């Protein structure tokens, strides 16, 4: 065919189908027909809040220094969903929450979410925005230094950091571990996952954080797009398994088809 670039038929089909799948899955999400499984990481968050109340020490929730306008925006959104969830738990159980902020664009949204959570639990009088959601800095190391200082001073019982993280992930994880805080870490910036895996008690790896964010927020768009990705992963699983079995028996049809 002269119209289509040769050797790219299958990617094109996959691409067009992804378009439809995304649209359709979001519609299904709006109709409430999709359920996401509850991740163990979320139970861990509940556990950490409970532990903080018992110990009479505060909780940290760090959403990272991402903005709404960069390519990590979806991670920031997931981090905010988790923050809202943590704030609800803190208000309900009576733990003191600290959520230091790094991005002036994201900060008002974070404050609004936390305030809503406290209002819904009827505990607005327990919240002091100035103290509990301070703006530290937009500069990476100044921000990291600020959080390290707060952590050493306040000795939180737990630290929940879910969002986009860069080189500061190692500093945070190391500091909170040193002061004996229980940690739940999650990011989709894969380079930083190993540090969280080494230092945190629970981790949300990559897309797990999006799923957790969608689960607690119940946003049909986020839920829908997770479903459409699942369809592709299932397709990859089926094609991979069948293809490998057939190829082992010298039938390379699946592999040949995919590179068409």
């Amino acid at each position, binding site marked *: 065919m*002269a*119209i*289509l*670039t040769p050797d*790219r038929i299958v*990617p*094109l089909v996959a*691409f067009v189908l*992804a*378009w439809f799948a*995304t*649209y359709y899955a*979001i519609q299904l999400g709006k109709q409430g027909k999709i359920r996401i499984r509850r991740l163990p990481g979320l139970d861990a968050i509940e556990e950490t809040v409970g532990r903080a109340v018992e110990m009479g020490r505060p909780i940290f929730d760090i959403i990272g220094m991402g903005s*709404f*306008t960069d390519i990590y*925006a*979806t991670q920031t*959104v997931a981090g905010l969903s988790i923050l809202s969830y943590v704030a609800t738990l803190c208000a309900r159980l009576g733990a003191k929450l600290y959520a230091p902020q790094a991005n002036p*664009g994201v900060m*008002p*949204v974070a404050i609004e979410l936390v305030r809503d959570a406290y209002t819904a639990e009827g505990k607005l009088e327990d919240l002091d925005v100035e103290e509990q959601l301070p703006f530290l800095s937009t500069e990476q*190391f100044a921000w990291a230094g600020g959080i390290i200082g707060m952590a050493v001073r306040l000795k939180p019982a737990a630290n929940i950091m879910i969002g986009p993280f860069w*080189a500061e992930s*190692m*500093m945070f*994880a*190391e500091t909170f*571990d*040193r002061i004996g805080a229980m940690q739940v870490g999650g990011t*989709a910036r*894969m380079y930083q996952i*190993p*540090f969280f*895996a*080494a*230092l945190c008690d629970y981790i949300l790896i*990559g*897309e797990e954080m*999006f799923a957790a964010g969608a689960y607690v927020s119940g946003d049909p*768009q986020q839920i829908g*797009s997770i479903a*459409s*990705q699942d369809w*592709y*992963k299932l397709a*990859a699983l089926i094609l991979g398994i069948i293809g490998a079995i057939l190829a082992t028996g010298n039938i390379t049809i699946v592999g040949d088809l995919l590179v068409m």
Partner: protein
Amino acid sequence: MDYRRDIPLVITFLIGVIAVMDYYTTFTSVKDVFTIIKNWGIVLEAFALGLGAVNLFRVHGRRISQRSTDWIFSALLLFMLVLFVVVGLGTGQYEAGTQYQWIYNSFFLPIGSTMYSSLAFYMAFGAYRVLRARNLDAFLLFVTAIFVILGNTPIFPATAPQFFYIREWIFTAIVGGTYRGIRIGVGIGAVVIGIRTLIGMETGYLGRR
């Protein structure tokens, strides 16, 4: 139609679709249009490079005029910024001028190459405090980390080449397999978010105001 919101969404959609068509179809008219889009994209990205400087002037200018804490550092920041711009543009040679290379090699290069590499010390703290086989998860991470570090440390393969072969095997088999699974997941995730952006369901980039 809201020209403040809808027209940008249409622009995103059209440009994105042309980019996709350029890849999958052979229409020469699409390719010509996309060549222009790429060129414009480069120029626009270049324009965007000044945004950071303007923002810093706003933020730190305010800090200096209000004499807030650390305003002296803000002054230093703006001085360095202006210095680079004046030397870069004033000589008319941009980054190729010898004066510019002098200030780059004096100020930018040493800090830039130290800032992130100084995390080596955090790696050392982390290693002795944290890389501990405290549960199954940490144990699994610990085992491969140790073998990779041993394989990466030339003195160990020099004494016993097996250290090197173990490291190579970990990369071939364990990393090769699992990271392929992760790559498939991350790749499809990016495509779905991209599609949501093109069809106007992901509008974060438009800002919140």
